[in-house]
């Protein structure tokens, strides 16, 4: 009580605004203060976040489908079918990636003796059924990906490797050659090999590779971590 009653007042006002108790001119004045005083705005936000967990108790309710359609129109998202295949594929790849990432990463990588940008990206890919596991390492010095196991095979199809960065758009890194433990990565693709990106393998027609987009569900996926 001895110190800074003003400060306490400010915080009280922030709490009142956060609770939504103010109305009319009082509310307008407090909202103006939010704009002119970032410290006050932060207090308001802190109060909102403090109280917000109470809202988990509010019963859920299902909105009608018009809501998403209106949102999609406002943010310029495709409302209907066009990229649905890609979306579903991406959801499958990212979902599986999250699963794979939760496995213990037991890959022991030799750190390259001299790594120009100091880090090496690794990923442990696993098959959709969780059986097959393949460790992948990117050596930025030589610009190659290395695999510790044979890549999957399929009749008439070849494994195509994709990287899916944060933007969710899969980009082809090319075909993995049968029996090869290494694969060069084109310069423009290298920056995508970063922590948090997902690697995925699909089985594709080798005659037309590399492809703009995958045509099948991934057979293996994994998240990249940098070590």
């Amino acid at each position, binding site marked *: 009580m001895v110190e800074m009653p003003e400060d306490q007042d400010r915080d009280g006002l922030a*709490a009142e605004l956060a609770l*939504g108790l103010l*109305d009319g001119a009082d509310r307008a004045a407090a909202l103006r203060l939010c704009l002119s005083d970032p410290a006050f705005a932060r207090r308001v936000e802190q109060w909102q*976040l403090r109280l917000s967990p109470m809202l*988990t108790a509010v019963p859920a309710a299902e909105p009608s489908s018009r809501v998403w359609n209106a*949102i999609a129109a406002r943010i310029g*998202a495709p409302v209907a079918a066009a990229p649905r295949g890609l979306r579903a594929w*991406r959801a499958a790849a990212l979902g599986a990636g999250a699963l794979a990432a939760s496995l213990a990463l037991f890959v022991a990588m030799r750190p390259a003796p001299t790594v120009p940008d100091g880090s090496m990206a690794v990923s442990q890919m696993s098959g959709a059924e969780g059986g097959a596991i393949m460790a992948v390492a990117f050596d930025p010095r030589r610009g190659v990906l290395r695999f510790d196991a044979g890549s999957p095979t399929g009749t008439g199809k070849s494994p195509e490797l994709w990287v899916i960065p944060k933007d969710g758009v899969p980009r082809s890194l090319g075909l993995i050659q049968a029996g090869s433990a290494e694969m060069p990565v084109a310069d423009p693709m290298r920056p995508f090999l970063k922590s*948090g990106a997902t690697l995925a393998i699909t089985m594709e027609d080798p005659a037309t590779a590399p492809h703009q987009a995958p045509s099948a569900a991934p057979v293996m996926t994994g998240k990249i971590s940098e070590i």
Partner: protein
Amino acid sequence: MRETAVADERARLVSAMDLAAAGDPAGLRRVYDMTCAKLFGICLRICGDREAAEDVLQDVYVKVWRRASAFDPAKASPITWLAAIARNAAIDWRRSDRRFDTAPEGVVEAIADESPLADAVIEGDDEHRRLRLCLEGLQPQQAQAIRRAFLEGLTYQELAECTDTPLGTIKSWIRRGMQKLKDCLGDG
């Protein structure tokens, strides 16, 4: 195991938010699919009207789309952050006009007994548990006034009227209650 499931769900939501922050509408769609029922419940409770609540819900996700990159998982869980945006939008709607008659009787009565809440318990939400314990440590009138203001979107004036309590008394319950709450939560 339940905690693992909660953590997984949270991680999935954070990654969908990341995707939305990177400008991918598919990310926002995933956020929507995972959270729209929860957020619509909040809008509906505060707006008290289905159609208005759906309009508000639209604004909520357009805001989330614009602000996704400002979300910081170190500061709040994604659902806490999203719920705060939904509640704010609903309060803005209520305060944007003089809507004395918007909280339908049924809604208010259903909320009056704010006992805790099967689904929060099921979610095993730490943040909520902590807040609930702190609220329980307040005087009952203080806690009740804070809960009603927050969950029903009532103003001081409305609270005073519907509890038949002088305005000054309500204000002091809330002010003292909020100060104690902050001390109890111990986060500055």
